[in-house]
């Protein structure tokens, strides 16, 4: 059985397992419990009172984190004509219609795919490749749009997409350990606010059951979610 290392155990001792922390306390603690030699990502995980097997209880959406995620996101824009220039100007890493063939050949070195609606017909056949990896562009996530400039800029500025998994949890990165506590707090607040706004009308009982933040290698720190109930 996997066991925790001594550095993790030392970090976990700083966290009271049965206690919930306020956002500012939790952010200070996540910074204090990060011990890895790299700049760890801070992740937020939220347990929701929804049944994702029902299509009307799927929680999905996007949020532009005010201070970004601290990670460089590689954006591919599938567009033709003037939209290619727009994508280039907006800072997309890859752009052009020729990438459809590259994806067919197995190339997938990008994190987000933005497509203009006129190319969705050609993308349909790639659903089996892109869909299971969560890379299929979708109007709901703002990745099927004619406004390529805005889409690319938002993604580059720290727009993240979230989606409830089959067990009713949502996970998302909200920054890096190197961020200031204020920046992490504001990002977390923006994420939780968006989750609350995305509450499906069909959800029954307590919607936000619990929320936890953690650094990549560090222990989980439970948040006090009383304010969101």
């Amino acid at each position, binding site marked *: 059985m996997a066991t925790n290392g001594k550095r993790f155990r030392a970090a976990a001792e700083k966290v009271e397992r049965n206690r919930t922390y306020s956002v500012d306390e939790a952010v200070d603690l996540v910074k204090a419990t990060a011990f890895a030699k790299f700049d760890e990502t801070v992740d937020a995980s939220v347990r929701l009172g929804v*049944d994702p*097997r*029902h*299509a009307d209880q*799927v929680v*999905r959406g996007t949020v532009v984190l005010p201070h970004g995620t601290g990670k460089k996101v590689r954006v591919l824009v599938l567009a033709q004509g003037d939209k290619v220039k727009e994508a280039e100007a907006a800072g997309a890493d890859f752009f052009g219609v020729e990438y459809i063939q590259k994806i067919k050949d197995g190339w997938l070195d990008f994190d987000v795919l933005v497509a203009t*609606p*006129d*190319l*969705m*017909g*050609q*993308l*349909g056949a790639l*659903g*089996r490749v*892109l*869909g*299971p990896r969560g890379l*299929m562009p*979708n*109007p*709901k996530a703002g990745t*099927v*749009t*004619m406004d390529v400039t805005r889409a690319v800029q938002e993604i580059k500025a720290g727009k993240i997409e979230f989606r409830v998994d089959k067990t009713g949890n949502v996970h998302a990165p909200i920054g890096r350990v190197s961020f200031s506590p204020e920046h992490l707090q504001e990002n977390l607040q923006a994420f939780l606010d968006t989750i609350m706004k995305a509450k499906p009308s069909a959800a029954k009982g307590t919607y936000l059951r619990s929320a936890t933040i953690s650094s990549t290698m560090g222990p989980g720190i439970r948040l006090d979610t009383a304010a969101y109930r």
Partner: protein
Amino acid sequence: MTVVSFADVAVDFGDTTLLRNVGFTVAAGERWGVVGRNGAGKTTLFRLITGDLAPTRGTVVRPAALRIALLDQLRHFGQAVTVWDAAAAGYREAMVLERDLAQQADRMAELGDRVDQTDLERYGRDQERFAHLGGYEFHSRVDAVLQGLGFNPAEAKTRPIETLSGGERGRVGLAAPLAAPADLLLLDEPTNHLDLDTIRWLTEYLGTLGETVIVISHDRAFLDDTVDHVLHVANATATPYRGGYSAFVTQRVERELSQQRAYDKQRTVIAKEEEYIRRHIAGQNSAQAKGRRTRLNRLPRLSPPAGEAGAMSLRLQIGERGGDQVVVAEHMGVRVADRALLTEVSVAARRGDIVALIGPNGVGKTTLLATLLGERAPAEGSARLGASITPAWYRQDLAGVPVDESIFDVIHELRPQWNRGQVQGHLGAFGFSGDEVQRSTTTLSGGEQARVALAMITLARANLLVLDEPTNHLDVESIEVLEDAIEEYEGTVLLVSHDRAFLRELATRVWSLEDGTLIDYQGPFVEWEQVQDERRRADSARAAATAEQQREANRKAKRPARTESRRKADGRDAARKRGALEADVAALENRIADLETQLTAPSLYDGSGKGAADAAALGRELAETQARLDAAMSTWSELADES
């Protein structure tokens, strides 16, 4: 998480109680096997789980959103046209949505800049639902299942359902629930009509599946490999057991034994008490005897372990001994229309052999039997039965059972001299009692028809039995009875079956149909299985070795680039070292020249002690410098040689 729970469930059909006091709970991820006699109520349990049938009493609880995939014994394909469509039946909604999304995408392509928000919202909504229905994964899942069941997925997309053979239809019917998105998989006799390789694949596939599985089966080896719980349906109730099939058999025997012991013990106590009451009721201890009588009247009576109703009793006898050579084929070829099924079959069955004839579906096992028995002419070579051999053929499709006749008449026609009691007695041994013998053969279930066929075959008193899939419709108890009967049989048996437990128990020899010919393995089925396992392991080891060689070749193919760059780097390094050495050599040569000049100075040889000492020191330094020069020259020439 509980997937389905039965609490005190009873099912009545009119005055007949089919099931009562049924209680068990199936948790998520568990694998249950349902066993019991034909007509005991196993399929009724499935109907209760799916909600097709409501219990007369008690409750069946299942989560509201539970997705159930059902394989029933009858294979329906709905409106599916191709094999692939039939296998993907569980994804019909996703398939419709896929087409709709493609149309919407085409429309958006046409509109270009003029696409409005409503179009995009609809597309987004549908795309979401498509992903939710497993739309992005179902193609690969259906392909994998079809591949496992022996179909070519690409071919299946164009192959019409009508072109399928019986066995293939069975496999396509199995593909649909296996590929469907479900939380609970209900499989009713999934191994019927499957060949050994496909059963092995199915066992492995069910092992990797995360869903909860409930399977009705009479295949003991399959159940042992697949399930972790057994539900035994018998005597109008269902009893749950923890563990695989073998564990169930042991537990059932133990349970029956302890029931019998408790019953016997109670009977002894009751007899003792009754004796006491009888002796003392009118005497001095009358009050005590009356008290005991009251207590005895209140005592709840235990019942003995219920025996199985309608059990079959089978005895296979031969009329005459027959020759030692039972079936002989020499250079025989078997052909159907233009297709050659088998060539160069040279084989002979000896008296007393129990030969297992195995091979994939559609390879020609039944055609081979017909040729060996002389019902078909061989395409080449010869086939003949030995002297005094009388064969009897139990056909897979039960075609030997006459249609629309009463069971009584069927037997009476074979033995016209028998009176009513004898016919009834014979049929009673096969589980048909009382008025049941007047039932028409068309109203019989598969299992009942199989029992009639066996009742007919025992009358033939043949010394060669040809049994083509005899276990297909029989329940476990009947299979075990058939096993015992074959074991005691003095004739020869040609056995076609995909029931591994049955073959392991009986077969003394294996005829395996592979690559268009017959391979005669002169050993029991268990040994043949071991040989096959070893062969499979060797094949996979060979495949792994080939893959490793391929990877190594790929690595080697990449290596020259790395070696080239390394060579260049080494070359640069060597050149740098040579340059440094050349500078050293030049410096050392200069120093030597300088030292030699100093050594020629007349002051060193003026006869003074200081001059002699200086000359000696210069001489030493010259020698050392010369040595260093030699070493540097030698290193330089080595480097020059390497480059």
